[in-house]
């Protein structure tokens, strides 16, 4: 049995922060890095390394997405005039005219589906190339947290706007994000708040706002939901903008979470932010994303230290009035975060796996469409979370079917080979794995000629921890089978074999 993790949130000392710890930090607070990046962070020491990842505003030169990056009016609603004409055509039985209207609607939908597919590729590319990986990772976190699916709303530009909201608040203030999310057209549509009107309230958004987005189940009453729904009446949207409809808003007195008065959506959010449960719920969700699953029961020897950590993270969160960065900095610097029991413990999400492979091994991207498709097969389709609770994560990512997809997409990135054979277009670009050995040569100039040293170095880089004798034996045997010469092809083969080891799925 491994011993329980330390309950210490004290910053890790610089001398305890080496290659292994820098690798861990890059994997969890980003999507992993190549050996040089790992070495650089290790040399900087924990303080500067964490600061560099968190202070995304300090990194310039990478273009922000622009409002006109995508088409905003593909799913434009018909004008009142068009609607009138359509109804008239229906009334007089003008089949041809009606068919024309329908055909136009279908063309719009097709164009919109094509746009959401290009957004999937666009976001994946950002994750792969952004110099601010934590910003994209937090954007992904919020997408899973405030899960909204294109499948239900069928409006790609609203998904884009929501994605931008998550990016602009990625490491910002959680409170401001909550005020914004109740005004977000995609969210309003997804949880039917456009149908939440004074005369017949719809509780969907009010319920999820507390249950999934801020407080967690059991920390509010059914009455809070009913009254909260009334506070959100009239919060609707028009095309791509938030629209408050005063006529539909319930002006009466409400009582939510101990506050009362003629409350509106903002008052509802304020009442939520006053709850201690809110800081604890969000802190523990971030903890699960960055560190590990929570212990299943109180009897688990890990339960005590983990709940002590969570309590103090929540206190930091409250103390900073819901600023994300200070809490995250405290966590990423802490001795607890680098506890050996927290290393190589998480199962990579499909995004972490695919983006991480490109970023760490420096493979060509080859074909973003194939990568998006593969992520879908692995259970993580960007902009299509499975339900309002988001991706479950952890073990749910891996089963007999997804495991082959996870291993084979690595073969594709390394060699251009698709599961159905060589892809003529995709395989043009040849991967040069030798750049990975630069760091090895720097400390030991002739090491890249020694199969032993190369294998041990690559295992440390790809899997973390100390290489086991059987893995060493297998891979050294592979290289020796090729005359012991460390050629690009042999290194690529070695990387493919390491990526086929079950441990490669961990980070």
């Amino acid at each position, binding site marked *: 049995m491994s011993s329980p993790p330390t309950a210490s949130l004290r910053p890790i000392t610089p001398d305890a922060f080496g290659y292994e710890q820098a690798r861990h930090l890059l994997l969890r607070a980003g999507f992993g890095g190549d050996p040089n990046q790992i070495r650089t962070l290790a040399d900087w020491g924990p303080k500067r390394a964490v600061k560099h990842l968190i202070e995304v505003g300090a990194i310039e030169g990478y273009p922000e997405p622009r409002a006109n990056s995508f088409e905003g009016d593909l799913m434009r609603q018909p004008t009142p005039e068009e609607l009138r004409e359509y109804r008239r055509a229906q009334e007089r039985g003008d089949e041809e005219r009606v068919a024309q209207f329908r055909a136009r609607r279908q063309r719009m939908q097709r164009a919109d589906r094509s746009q959401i597919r290009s957004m999937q590729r666009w976001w994946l590319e950002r994750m792969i190339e952004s110099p601010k990986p934590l910003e994209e990772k937090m954007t992904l976190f919020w997408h899973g947290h405030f899960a909204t699916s294109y499948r239900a709303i069928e409006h790609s530009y609203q998904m884009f706007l929501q994605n931008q909201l998550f990016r602009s608040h990625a490491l910002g203030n959680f409170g401001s994000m909550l005020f914004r999310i109740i005004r977000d057209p995609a969210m309003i549509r997804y949880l039917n708040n456009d149908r939440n009107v004074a005369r017949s309230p719809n509780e969907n958004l009010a319920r999820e706002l507390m249950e999934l987005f801020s407080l967690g189940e059991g920390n509010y009453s059914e009455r809070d939901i009913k009254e909260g729904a009334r506070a959100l009446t009239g919060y609707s949207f028009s095309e791509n903008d938030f629209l408050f409809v005063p006529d539909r808003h319930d002006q009466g007195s409400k009582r939510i979470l101990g506050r009362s008065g003629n409350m509106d959506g903002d008052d509802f959010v304020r009442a939520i932010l006053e709850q201690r449960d809110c800081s604890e719920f969000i802190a523990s969700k971030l903890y699960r994303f960055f560190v590990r699953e929570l212990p299943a029961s109180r009897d688990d020897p890990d339960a005590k230290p983990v709940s002590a950590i969570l309590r103090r993270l929540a206190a930091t969160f409250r103390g900073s009035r819901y600023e994300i960065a200070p809490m995250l900095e405290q966590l990423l610097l802490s001795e607890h975060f680098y506890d050996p029991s927290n290393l190589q413990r998480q199962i990579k999400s499909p995004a972490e796996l695919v983006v991480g492979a490109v970023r760490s091994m420096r493979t060509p991207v080859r074909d973003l469409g194939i990568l998006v498709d593969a992520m879908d097969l692995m259970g993580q389709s960007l902009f299509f979370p499975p339900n309002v609770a988001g991706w479950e994560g952890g*073990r749910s990512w891996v*089963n007999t*079917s997804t495991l082959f997809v996870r291993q084979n997409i690595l073969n594709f990135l390394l060699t251009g080979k698709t599961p159905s054979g060589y892809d003529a277009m995709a395989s043009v670009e040849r991967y040069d794995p030798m750049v990975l050995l630069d760091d090895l040569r720097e400390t030991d100039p002739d090491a890249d000629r020694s199969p032993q040293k190369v294998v041990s170095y690559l295992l440390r880089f790809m899997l973390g921890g100390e290489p086991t004798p059987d893995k060493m034996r297998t891979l050294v045997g592979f290289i020796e089978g090729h005359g012991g010469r460390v050629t690009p092809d042999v290194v690529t083969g070695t990387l493919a074999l390491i990526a086929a080891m079950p441990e490669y799925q961990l980070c």
Partner: protein
Amino acid sequence: MDLHGSKAYSRRAFLQRGVTLASSAVTVPYFLQSSAVALARPANAGTSVAGVPEERVLVVVQLAGGNDGLNTVIPFEDDSYYRLRPQIGIPGAQVHKLSARSSIGLHPAMDSMKELYDDGLLTVVQGVGYPNPNRSHFTSMDIWHTADTSGVGDGWLGRFFDAQCAGADPRTGKGAPAGHAGVAVGRDAPLAMQGRQYRPISFETADMFRWTGLDLHPSMAQPYEEILESELDPTVEQGNPSAAFLTRTAMDAQVASAKIRRAVDTDPLVRYPNSGLARQLAMVASMIRAGLETRVYYVSLGGFDTHAGQGGAGGQHANLLRTLSEAVNAFYKDLQAQGNDGRVLTMSFSEFGRRVGQNASNGTDHGAAAPMFLMGPMVRPGVHGGHPSLTDLDAGDLKYHTDFRNVYSAVLGEWLKADSSRVLGGTFKPLRVLKT
């Protein structure tokens, strides 16, 4: 060999020792655990129907795009039918009447399914749908897949497998479904089979359900074999449960891959027609013949979105129905030759039917209620329910009288022996479509 030492964890050792020792090891592939239980039971113990083995299989045939139910099961004595479909209506003389006195019949291209019907292997469930029908392909398909009228949540078959996972021993995995308990033949794994925990296996050709690194160079095979057979360090098993879980899943995947690829490598016992659906069903039949632990197979046929020029007795829609009929007919002939037909229930559905009146392009637009087919020796053959009225319509569409979840309820409860109300999240009276 020391069975209780660290060597006890290699894959080869499992395969060699087989099921008898499965219970003594900690890290056993999940499927070996469950098949050990299955094999320990006498072949005919606990079966509720004489002669029908408990290892029952469900095959779902998805007709994607919205099948025109009204030109599939045709009310040829109804004048409204010909009035509303002047070009695409099918003359009564050409339909396959379902009985001498019957006023409905199958489309002329469906001879092969008529044959199944005459042999008592087919039941037609009329007027199937759900409240407030949704006419978007996307949403309506999700509604059928999730068995939820908002179309949100896990798949209904995924929840069936999840319920089995939940009933399993959390430490050993005993009682859990096999990794390949659900197999979808096709590029995408259908939402219907996605559970919270359970994920189906899906592949277009079994060749893809394997590690592609083997194709890179012959020298990859030996080290790959060594990786698969390397033992899991018992200290890792206890200290890092994620690593243990992954190693176990990798074993499962390897075994399932080998079994499935071996299974589909055999020639079918009968000749199948030349169509994608027939090839999918031939693969399913091979897997059933090989005795895989798979409970649910999923295949699909697309192209039913016939907005323009759908044809009548011949043409676009007729070809689709012929493809369907010939494929399922060959499938049951194959299963009969194997002696497995009694174990297999096949169910077809489409996300919606089509509008009653034809449109200006001699096609049909998205509609609502439509028939479903259930096939196999265990169905109560015949026609279930009356044909929906062609004059009492819901915005131009047929009104449903049977909720599809009542069909699911029968399939789950009476065929798969599951707690259907738990899986469906509500109680739906099972439709009396199966012999029980």
